[in-house]
Each structure stands twice: as structure tokens, then as C-alpha cells.
């Protein structure tokens, strides 16, 4: 199991990277979201001890709890990621409106 999770993360990052490197701006958005998912999964897995119960107190105290810290961190990260994604989306709308393209490779006004 522990071997499979790294593979999943690898695939998330690899497909995210591939999409990010495509020329269409939608693919850029999709790729960055996938990479964001990958990062969140890495972060949540950092507290993984195998089995554990949900960190809500006051019930069964016998089983060990899952580490709540990474959960809190990921929650923050998800929300921040969502904010950035929303911003990126609107920005890509503006790119389409102002620069008249959805092809990232055509956005080359500022070079050198």
C-alpha cells in the first residue's frame, strides 16, 4: 500500500505537468489543478500512520487518532488553492478577451 501511494502521486504530478506544458490555456488550468491535488495528497499523507480514527474527541478513546495537523494544513491549502484557481480562471478569460487567443504559446508580447 505504501508503495502504491507514491505511484499515485507520481501520476498526478506527471499528468499535471504534461497538461501544464500544453498550449491551450484550459489545459494549463487543468494541469495546475492536478498538481495542486497532488501536493495536497502529499501533505495529507505526511501524517499517515496506516490506520486511525477520525480526530474527533469524546467517542471511542481506545484507537489511535489520525494526525489532525496535516488535515488542518490541507484544509487551508485547499481553500487557498481554490482562490488562486478562481483568479487564474478569470485571468484566462481576460487573456482570451484581450489577447484574442487561448494558445499560451501565442502570448509572447514581452520577450527578451
Amino acid at each position, binding site marked *: 500500500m505504501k508503495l502504491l501511494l507514491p505511484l499515485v502521486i507520481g501520476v498526478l504530478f506527471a499528468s499535471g505537468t504534461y497538461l501544464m506544458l500544453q498550449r491551450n490555456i484550459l489545459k494549463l488550468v487543468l494541469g*495546475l489543478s492536478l498538481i495542486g491535488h497532488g*501536493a495536497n495528497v502529499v501533505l495529507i499523507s505526511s501524517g499517515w500512520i496506516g490506520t486511525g480514527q477520525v480526530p474527533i474527541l469524546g467517542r471511542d478513546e481506545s484507537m489511535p487518532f489520525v494526525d489532525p*495537523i496535516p488535515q488542518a*494544513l490541507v484544509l487551508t491549502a485547499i481553500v*487557498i488553492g481554490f482562490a*488562486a484557481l478562481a483568479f487564474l480562471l478569470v485571468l484566462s478569460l*481576460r487573456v482570451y478577451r484581450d489577447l484574442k487567443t487561448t494558445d499560451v504559446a501565442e502570448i509572447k*508580447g*514581452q520577450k527578451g
Partner: protein
Amino acid sequence: MSHLLVLPILIPLGTAILLLLLRFQPMARRIVIGLSSLLIVAVNISLLLKINAEGIQSYRTGGWAAPYGIILVGDLFSGILLVLGCVIAVCAVYYSFAYLKTDAQKALFHALFFFLWAGTNGSFLTGDIFNLFVMFEIVLMSIYALLTMLGEKKQIEAGIKLISMGLLSSALFLVAVGGIYAFAGTLNMADLAVKIKPHAHHPLVSAVAMLFIGVFGLKAALMPMHFWLPDVHSSAPTPISAMLSGILIKVGVYAIIRIFCLIFVDLQGHFQTFILTLACITMFVGAMGAVAQTDLKRVLAYSSVSQIGYIFMGIGFFSVAGMGAAIFYIISHGIIKASLFLAAGVLKKMRGTMEMSEHGNMMKISPIFTLFFLIGVFSLGGIPPSSGFFMKFQLIKAGLDGAFYLPVAVALVVSLFTLFYLIQAWQKICLHTQEKAPENPLNPHLLVPVGVLALLALVLGFASAPVIDLANAASEQLFTPELYINAVMGKQ
């Protein structure tokens, strides 16, 4: 425990929120902005004095002790950056009133600006690695918003580049935090330092350190993560360009210095060649880029890349003298570059373009502007007695003391190019004859911050001894991480 440490975050954050609520009261906003700017300056300076007198300060937010709550820590280095930041920010705020046109722009700009300020101060003060992530995000998000808010084509274009790279770096930050949390089981930087110390040479630690270099290097525009900088600096509204070059890219530098002087102390040797190599390439490529430009703001932007290389060279020496030199470099470069960017904005307001061939005659139009600009040029070129001389001098001295001859040689050659492209730019703008008259007259309000910063650069040269001593004291503090750890973990 004094609340002085939390105020540099609280005041700008509160001001930003207040500005949001005062959306429709321009006069009230003006008063709030003025008062709280001055308040922040006062707080930051007194904080620096306090740290200087009493040693490293720490503050438990929410009252939770380290390593459980988020601890704010102020050492000399962060104190210095706080003061530098507020000096530049105050100038930028003043400048923005004359720079922005409509009230709607101002309302949005100032709210975002204070969020940015809060995030910057927070980045310098936080002692928690994940909180640093959040602070970075607020800084980045405000930059995205400030960059694109005027909606010019160039800004949209730079925005899409910056935000893509920013999202990538945020993801890598999370990955690095995940790795380090899994490894050490804590997020407090002082605690991390303690926990990692016995296992410093574990491969995972090196990997995490490198990811951090990638993430912070992107903010600091270290080669090859610098790609966003020329576009963003040159297209952002001028006060933001000044902030970016003056203090915001230094946030990345700060973070790298912080982690390598605290968490990854034992990896300094492992990363030294790597950092020095990157520093040399950054210096060189930045200068080459600046020579190639015809747009003044892009010249200055590439120059910032090049100067970041110098700063990283100082860091890469990993000696007290080198770090002291880097810290002084940060201060001095921040002030000079902010002044130059603001000066560029003055020109932009006059003719609506930054192409140097479209400008000229400034010597006739405004000798004062020419003088301020020239002070900036010579300071950055390292001509004594300006502060720019001392920043280069210390760096070279630290390098020769540490027997790093190659980086020093590169630095020397590049500094020649620095002088060359700056003089060329100054000549083109101030001396060349230009037939076309400027569209707008020069706005004297815009000149005030330019002059203040330029004169500050001069003063910093004439009275450099106390600042140099302060920078070196900060550097010594950085090289005794026990002080930091004790201040955070010890009885509070």
C-alpha cells in the same frame, strides 16, 4: 511579553480591512492610510530598536506555546527588513496617490496594498513554516491582484505567467512542508531545527531543502526561476514595481537565509557550490539581459535579477562576513532600486511609454529629476561614497577572505556592466535630445518619494558605519541559531 511584535502584522491587516469597509469614503481612507502608515513606521523602528537592545523577541499568537501555536519571532535580520519594507512601502503609498487616476482604482489599490504589506511583514516575522506558506500566499495573491487590476494587455500577459509559476511554486511548497512534517513531526522552525539537527544528512532533508530553494528562489527571482520577473516588474503599476524590487523579492531571499541559517544549518556545505553557481549565473544573465533592453523598466528589472545574484553570492559564502554583506546589500539595493523604479514611473506618466528612445531632454526639463536619477545610477553602479559602494565592497571582501576567487571575478566583471547599462540609460533619458514634447507635465508629487529614497541611499553611504555594524550583528545572530531556538522554545 510585549505586543510590539504582532503589531507590524496587525496594523496593516486591520487597515486593509478598514479600507475595504470604507470603500465609499475617499477622505476617510486617506486619513486612515496616512495615520496607519506612520504608525507602522514607528512600530517597526521601535521594534528594531527593541530587538537591538534586548535580543531576539518572540510572541505566541493565540497564547499557545511553541511548538504548538504559531510563534512570531523577531530577530535583527527580520527587524531590519521590516524597517526597510516600511520605508519603501510608505514611499510607494505616497507615490500611488499621484500615480493612480480614479478613486475606484485607489480604493482597490490601497486595500490590496495593505494586505500585501501585512503579508510581507508576516513573512519576516513568522516562526512557523506553514504560516510562512500562508504569508507567501497572501503576498503572491496581492501581487497577482495588484498586477492585473489596471487590466492593461501587458499586465494580463505578465499575470498569467506569474500566476502559473506561483501556483506551481505553491504546490512545491506544500510538497516540501509535507516532507518535512513527515520527517520531523513539527512545523515550528526552531523546533524543526532541533529535531532535524541529528539527521541533517538524511537524503529527504536535502530534497526538502532543495524544494525550498526552488520555491523561495522563484519568489527571489533566482536563476532559472527568474522568468516571471522582467515581465512582471516592467508591466506592474510603478509603486508595485518599486515594492517588488525593493522588498518583495527580498522576501524569498529572507526565507532562504532563514531556513539555511536555522533548519538546514548542517547542509550549508552541501549546498554551497550549488548556490554559488546559481548566484554567478544569475548575476551574469541578469546583467546581459539589462544590457539588451531598450525599455527602462525592463533594464531595471533585469538589473534586479542581476543584483539578486550578488545577494545570493553573499549568502553562498556562508560566512558571517558574507551574510553581513548580503544583508547590507539587501538594504541598500532595496532603497536604490525602489528610487529608480519610482523615477521610471515619473517618466511613464510624462510620456506614457518606457521605451528609452522615446524619452530624452530630462536634463532641461527637470535637473532635479536628473540628479536623483543619477544618484541612483551611481549608487547601483557602486561608486563611493554612495551606499552601493559599500554593498559591493563588503561582498568582494567577504569573497576574497573566503578564497572564492571565481565568484568574485564574475561579480567584478558584472559590476562593470551594471555601471555601463545604467549610464547608458541615464544618458538616453536625461541627455539625449528629444524633439517631441512630453504629453503631461512632470508631477512634483511623484518626485518626492524618488528624492527621499535617493537621498537615503546617499546618507546610507556617508553614514554607513552603523548600518554595516547592524547588518553584521544580524549576520552574527543568524550564525548562532541557538539564540533563535532559545528565544522560541525557552521559557517565555
